[in-house]
C-alpha cells in the first residue's frame, strides 16, 4: 500500500514547518526527499516514523514494521557493531549473517570494537546495516551517506541497492547523485515564506 499524506501541517510554537503538505510515497520503491535546510524534511520523516505528532492532516499506509538511519547515528556506544545490529534483529538472524553484512560494507576489522571507538564514517555504516537488517517493511534514511568519502559512499550505496529488497525506502538527501545512483522518485520541498510546497520533479528508474 502506498503512503498517502494529505494536507499535513506542523508548527513548533510560532514557527510553521509544514503547511498543507501532501504527497504519495510509493510502496516498495525508493523515494528521495530533497530541499533546502530547514524546509521540514526531517520533521516530515519524524512524523511518519511516529516520533513527532502532526498538527493537522492525514497519513495512511505507513507500515508498522519500521527501521531508520537517523540524522545522528543513535548507536549503543559501549557495544560493538555486531551487537548494535543484533539489537534490532529477529532472534532467527544468525551472528554470521550480521558479520557478513558488516564485511560487505567494509567493516571487517572493526566490527568487534565498541562503536564509540569507530570513526564517524564507520559508525554511519553500522547504522545503515542496522536499518537494513532489521525486519522492517519501510526504511527511513535521513542523510544516510553523510560523512562518507566518495569511494566508501559508492560502495555503501551499492550495498543499499543490493540489500533493500522489496522495502519501501524514504531517503532525505541534499545530493542528487544519490538519487541518480539508486533510482526512484524525488519529492522536492521548498520553503516559501511559511508555506512548504512539493512537487515530483523527476523520476529516475
Amino acid at each position: 500500500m502506498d503512503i498517502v499524506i494529505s494536507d499535513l501541517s506542523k508548527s513548533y510554537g510560532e514557527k510553521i514547518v509544514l503547511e498543507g503538505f501532501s504527497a504519495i510515497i510509493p510502496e516498495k520503491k525508493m523515494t528521495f526527499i530533497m530541499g533546502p535546510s530547514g524546509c521540514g524534511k526531517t520533521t516530515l520523516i519524524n512524523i511518519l516514523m511516529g516520533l513527532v505528532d502532526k498538527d493537522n492532516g492525514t497519513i495512511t499506509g505507513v507500515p508498522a514494521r519500521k527501521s531508520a538511519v537517523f540524522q545522528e547515528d543513535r548507536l549503543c556506544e559501549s557495544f560493538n557493531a555486531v551487537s548494535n545490529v543484533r539489537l534490532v534483529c529477529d532472534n532467527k538472524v544468525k551472528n554470521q549473517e550480521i558479520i557478513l553484512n558488516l564485511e560487505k560494507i567494509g567493516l571487517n576489522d572493526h566490527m568487534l570494537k565498541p562503536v564509540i571507538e569507530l570513526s564517524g564514517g564507520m559508525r554511519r555504516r553500522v547504522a545503515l546495516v542496522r536499518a537494513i537488517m532489521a525486519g522492517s517493511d519501510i526504511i527511513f534514511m535521513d542523510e544516510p551517506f553523510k560523512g562518507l568519502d566518495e569511494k566508501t559512499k559508492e560502495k555503501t550505496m551499492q550495498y543499499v541497492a543490493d540489500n533493500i529488497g522489496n522495502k519501501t525506502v524514504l531517503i532525505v538527501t541534499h545530493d542528487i547523485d544519490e538519487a541518480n545512483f539508486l533510482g526512484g522518485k524525488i519529492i522536492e520541498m521548498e520553503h516559501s515564506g511559511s508555506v512548504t510546497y512539493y512537487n515530483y520533479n523527476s523520476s529516475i528508474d
Partner: protein
Amino acid sequence: MMISTILNRNRIEKIASVVFALIVWQASAMLIGESLLLVTPIAVVKRLFSLFTEADFFTSIGYSFLRIVAGFLIGLVAGSLMAAIAGKFHLAEIMFWPFIATIKSVPVASFIILCLIWLSMGTLSSFISFLMVLPIIYSNVLQGIKSTDKKLLEMAEVFRVGLFRRIVFIYMPQLKPYLISACSVAMGLAWKSGIAAEVIGVSNGSIGEKLYEAKIYYTTADLFAWTVVIVVLSIGFEKLFLYVIKKFYARLERL
C-alpha cells in the same frame, strides 16, 4: 609513562601521610600515657592478632557480614525496582517521595530504636542496612533512568525493540556510573548503620556486641581493633562488589 609516574607519586604520598598519621597517633597516646583514653597503634595491632585466635572472632564476623550484606543487597534490588517503576510512572514517583524523604531525613538511631520494638535482634541490622541503602540506590538509579538518552529510546521505539533488549542495551549502560557511585556510598553506609544497630540492640554474637562489650569494660584496644576489622570488611566488600559489577558490565558489553 608520565601517568604511571604520577600514580606512583600519589601512592607514595598517600603511604607517607598514613605513616605520618600513625606517628602522630603513637606520639599522642604516649604523651597521654593512659591506654583507657587513647591506646597506641602498636597495642591495637597486638590486640588484632590476638583476636584472630579467639574462638568467636570469625563467627562474629560471619554473623554481621551476612546480615549487613543481605540488607545491602535487598536494598539494592528494592531500590532499583522502585526506581524503575518511578521512572515509568510519574505517579509512583510522587507516591514514593514521602517514604524516601522520611528515610533520608530521620536519624538512623531513631529507626534503630523503633525497629527494636518491631523486629527480632537477628533481622535488626539487615533491616537498618536495607533502610539506609534504599533511598541512595533509588535516587541514583532514578536519576540515571531519567537521564537516559532520549534519542536512543526513540530509536528503540522506531525499531520496536523489546523491553529486555532495551534494558540490556540502553538502560544498563546508561545506569553504570549512577549504579557504581550509589553502591559505593550505600555500602559504606550499610556497614556503619548495621553495626550501629547491633551496638544499640546488643545483637548476640555480632561485631556490634563486641563493640558494646568494649564500651562496658572500657577496653579501648578492643574497640579500636574491632573498628579496624569493620573498616577492612567494609572496604574489602566494596572493592569486591564493584569488581563484580565492572566484570558484569564488561561481559554485558561483549554480548
